[in-house]
């Protein structure tokens, strides 16, 4: 059979529900033998930030931003009914009761199936984030041309 089909997903949103949808599609596509690249940009960077440790950044505004926008897969709010964390906690309980995989489970599965994670360097620069702010599963740090280079060969390209 010909070359593997390619799927690209731009993860722009930093919310739990949208991250779950992104990884749901990414893992399904990878299990179907497709070559999947996820490009994390802007608020989407929150999905791949480390859960522990402080975020280092320079300047008052960037320090404020990273304090209010800490991120990390375990801290993502729901886009609806977050309710200061109560709604998100309840949603995680419901998902657990139904034996649904957590976001962290799906991220680990995505890696195991060979999904590539790319972090957007422009957003990192704006927000004052270094490579050390991100989980080690990130494969590379790159820009829009890298994404488009992949997307132009893609048969499925999503923006979430």
């Amino acid at each position, binding site marked *: *059979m010909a070359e*593997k*089909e390619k799927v690209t997903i731009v993860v722009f949103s930093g919310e739990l529900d949208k991250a779950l949808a992104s990884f*749901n599609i990414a*893992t*399904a596509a*990878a*299990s*179907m*033998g*497709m070559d999947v690249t996820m490009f994390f940009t802007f608020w989407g960077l929150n999905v791949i930030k480390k859960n522990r440790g402080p975020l280092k950044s320079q300047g008052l505004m960037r320090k404020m931003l990273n304090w209010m926008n800490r991120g990390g897969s375990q801290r993502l709010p729901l886009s609806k009914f977050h309710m200061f964390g109560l709604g998100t906690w309840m949603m995680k309980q419901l998902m657990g009761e*139904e*034996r*649904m*995989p957590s976001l962290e489970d799906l991220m680990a*599965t995505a*890696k*195991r*199936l*060979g999904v590539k994670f790319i972090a957007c360097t422009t957003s990192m620069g704006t927000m004052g984030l270094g490579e050390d702010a991100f989980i080690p599963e990130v*494969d590379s740090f790159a820009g829009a041309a890298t994404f488009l280079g992949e997307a132009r060969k893609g048969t499925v390209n999503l923006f979430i």
Partner: protein
Amino acid sequence: MEADAVLDCMGLYCPMPIIETTDKIKELEVGQVLEVIADDKGIVTDMPAWCESTGHEFLGIEEKHGEYRVYVKKRADQYPITNNQGE
């Protein structure tokens, strides 16, 4: 239908049944049949789509009281799933 291996996906929702199938089918020899048992209705169309994409053969589905038994015959790996290191 006779199967060489059985995968229990009862209680699991999309995309877990096809991800577990991806893992399980690696243990089978080419030509062997895998039976997947699930109760998520999505599998009725998901498994044929997974088979079409991966090249494995969809043999059929049996439904009884909301329990689905899906049969897949392993074909030679046309789209080997690589790990992160291997390409």
